[in-house]
């Protein structure tokens, strides 16, 4: 699946997007955050406060208990500040 990052999440990770294949036991958005945070210091810094992180699956907002099975694109970003 493709992951996309925005705003300070993108800056902390140092990438705009990447393709990942998480192991089968990673089933939810929250579990995916935990799996990514364990990768290295940059991801750990980006996801240091998981409850602040917002997520979208295939362009729709989701909560962290959402299942990731079948997702094509998952995005992580801070709370939005548009308007």
């Amino acid at each position, binding site marked *: 699946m493709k992951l*996309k990052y*925005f*705003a300070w999440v993108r800056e902390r990770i140092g990438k705009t997007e990447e393709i990942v294949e998480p192991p089968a036991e990673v089933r939810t958005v929250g579990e995916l955050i935990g799996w990514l945070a364990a990768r290295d210091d940059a991801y750990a810094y980006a996801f240091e406060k998981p409850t602040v992180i917002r997520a*979208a699956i295939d362009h729709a907002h989701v909560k962290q208990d959402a299942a990731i099975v079948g997702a094509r694109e998952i995005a992580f*970003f801070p*709370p*939005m*500040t*548009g*308007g």
Partner: protein
Amino acid sequence: MTVAATIRIQEPDFDVAQEIAALSKGRTDVGAVVSFSGICRGSEQGEPIAALTLEHYPGMAEAEISRHADEALARWPLQGLTIIHRFGRIAPGENIVLVVTASAHRQAAFEAAEFLMDYLKTNAPFWKREESARGTSWIEARDHDDAAAARWTKS
């Protein structure tokens, strides 16, 4: 009559007067037009800023704004709806966002415009970064914006 919203996510500036006129020109069924323009302030939390840079999520920004436009059209009897949101670098005094609603009567136009702005603030995937003499920093989301959006949720 089915009303289609005009939604544009763009880098260039836009002409507010022209967008307002476009919703009522040549029509006799529109009795009220409400517009909200969001403009870049020259200061943030009392500190002068040089500019804002808006990052957005292409694809999702259009999808999310369309969803809320459809909800507004379902909840209020609107005759027209235009939403424009800019991205990129925006200097103080320049436009950031525009919502224009047209209806037969003012209440629907006022309410729909306020509903859309409250949702754009908290749900549209845009992020503001400010530039000032002290460098650049991401603007933090505000709790009162969440509270403003929550009051439109049907119980």
